[in-house]
């Protein structure tokens, strides 16, 4: 276990992380780091953020004992769902965009940009921009615009401009590239609200900290509810923000097993997947060293997942560190298994999960035979499924 808090002064989590960005952005990253460090210690900032989280976003979210789901899974398993799907805008993304939005205002920048895959981070950014009176542009791959058009419409209603990205694979990876290019160009007036625990330092730490409210609440709630810590904490991983948000407060609870579930797409052997931690190799993408999907020449591979929010060939550096140090375990489930997870929750509990956390739910079925009877499992239900109804209808 590391003696000093991570990341270190160079923004590293062990060998991962860092700042691999064009020189133009280096001083903006420094500015952000200083602004964040100051804000963290500022009681007024903390009070304002927790006020918005409580009264605007709807925190704390419930930790719900999913009785019928547990019964269905068997072996006396007790499954608790951390209901981030009940938050304003329908996913955990708002935890981070509120924090970074307030930070943007403190830095005196009038404009924000963001990348989005499933559109949840885009919606959460557009929401906060409207709330705080910031100009807002969202980069989104043109493939994702088609499959998540409900969210595109939501962003536009909120006053944001959605910029389609036609380069590369036309998904989240390329939206990230384009957002970084915008930031390089408009860095003096613009803050880039990165949506996951990826990117150059200090983003992975900032997003983790803003999302850690999930794990802090869940830890408190499960202790109150069951009088003990859970045996497992399970969350889906694309870039990894909801997973890191719930994992991080359990980091020192060595007996709590942390499991990240990635997208195996059409199957790991098909090559059409987004299982970066399970299958990836070390490299540098979007400003950080981490595991990623690439070919033997260092070209980034296209990812695939039925869940647009997981369709990303990179992953947050802290997850790579958790994997390397074995603090967390990472598995992958296919599109089909995720759809089964979606259906399972819908029909046992009356909750439509987003396709992203459907991967975590789909994994439970695989986990059951391996666990001790009566194990307690906390699943991060990171978002709700309204945005996915069309995709699911087409796939089932």
């Amino acid at each position, binding site marked *: 276990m590391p003696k000093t808090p991570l990341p270190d002064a160079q923004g590293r989590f062990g060998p991962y992380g860092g700042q*691999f960005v064009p020189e133009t952005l280096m001083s903006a990253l420094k500015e952000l780091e200083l602004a964040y460090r100051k804000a963290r210690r500022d009681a007024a900032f903390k009070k304002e953020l927790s006020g918005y989280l409580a009264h605007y976003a709807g925190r704390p979210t419930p930790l719900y004992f999913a009785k019928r789901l547990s019964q269905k899974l068997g072996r006396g398993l007790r499954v608790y769902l951390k209901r981030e799907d009940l938050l304003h805008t329908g996913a955990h993304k708002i935890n981070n965009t509120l924090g970074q939005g307030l930070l943007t205002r403190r830095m005196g920048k009038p404009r924000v940009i963001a990348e989005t895959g499933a559109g949840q981070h885009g919606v959460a950014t557009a929401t906060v921009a409207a709330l705080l009176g910031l100009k807002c542009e969202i980069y989104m791959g043109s493939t994702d615009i088609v499959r998540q058009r409900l969210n595109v419409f939501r962003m536009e209603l909120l006053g944001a401009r959605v910029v389609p990205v036609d380069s590369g694979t036309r998904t989240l990876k390329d939206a990230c590239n384009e957002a970084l*290019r915008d930031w390089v*160009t408009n860095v003096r007036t613009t803050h880039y609200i990165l949506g996951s625990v990826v990117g150059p330092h200090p983003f992975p730490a900032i997003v983790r900290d803003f999302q850690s409210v999930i794990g802090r609440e869940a830890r408190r709630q499960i202790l109150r509810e069951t009088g003990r810590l859970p045996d497992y904490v399970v969350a889906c991983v694309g870039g990894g923000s909801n997973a890191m948000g719930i994992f991080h407060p359990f980091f020192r609870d060595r007996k709590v097993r942390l499991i990240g579930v990635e997208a195996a797409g059409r199957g790991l052997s098909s090559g059409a997947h987004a299982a970066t931690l399970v299958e990836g190799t070390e490299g540098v993408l979007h400003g950080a060293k981490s595991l990623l999907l690439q070919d033997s020449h260092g070209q980034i591979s296209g990812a695939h997942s039925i869940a647009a929010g997981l369709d990303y060939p990179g992953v947050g550096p802290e997850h790579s560190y958790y994997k390397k140090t074995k603090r967390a375990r990472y598995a992958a489930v296919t599109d089909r298994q995720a759809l089964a997870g979606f259906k399972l929750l819908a029909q046992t509990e009356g909750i439509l999960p987003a396709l992203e956390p459907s991967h975590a739910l789909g994994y439970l079925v695989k986990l059951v035979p391996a666990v001790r009877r009566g194990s307690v499992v906390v699943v991060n239900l990171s978002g709700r499924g309204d945005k996915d109804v069309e995709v699911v209808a087409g796939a089932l």
Partner: protein
Amino acid sequence: MNRIEAAFGRLRGERRKALIAYLTVGFPSMRLLEPLAACLQEGGVDLLELGIPFSDPLADGPTIQAASQKALLNGVTPGGVLKSVERLRGRGITLPIALMTYFNPVLRYGPARFCRDAVSAGADGVIVPDLPPEEAAELIRPARRENLDTIFLAAPTSPRERIRGIVRASRGFLYYVSLTGVTGARARLPVSLTDHVRLIKRMTTLPVCVGFGISRPDQVRAVTRVADGVIVGSALLAAVGRSGRPVAAASRFIRSLRRACG
């Protein structure tokens, strides 16, 4: 002394400014690399910057993005680029050559092996736009050993203390990014450009060359009044890409800039 140092020494003696031309290797085709390089050499280019294409070129604008994508479709790899440098050296290309790419292909190739193979192929320098000096130790160490120049970029947003670090890490020349933005032709360059270049020149004896956004003779003239050279990439690729006779187009374009460059 490698070719880059020798070239700038000669230019200084002749009181001339460097014209640096960028090509993405494999755009529009691998076959055209040699005739393009030869025409640039004949047209008075002083240094050749050869781009190893990367799938996610986040410092590049639409022109070089498209060229990179085309080159990747043409099957270009880092190893293939190094082989083509070796071939150029065998065919009478004596210009200094700096390789431009992103860090991931270098990392995958292995930085030490990359530096060794680059130098033995006949390259003289390397430019990696997503690698600031703080992160560059694993490239700088082998590059020094092989005498491969590490050319770092300074930007309009770089404060004085960062420029000092960039100067320390740089060999051959310093690449000043004219504007806050990605590569690609611009109608106008920032008015503060000349002041920034003057400031940097006071901090180093290295030649300072300016790139990003430069496409026209009048811009070349203005920039070389203070800088030691200019770098032209997107505008050259655009001229090559839209012409049915790419080599003639490159030649015409580069000669117009050469006259302005002095």
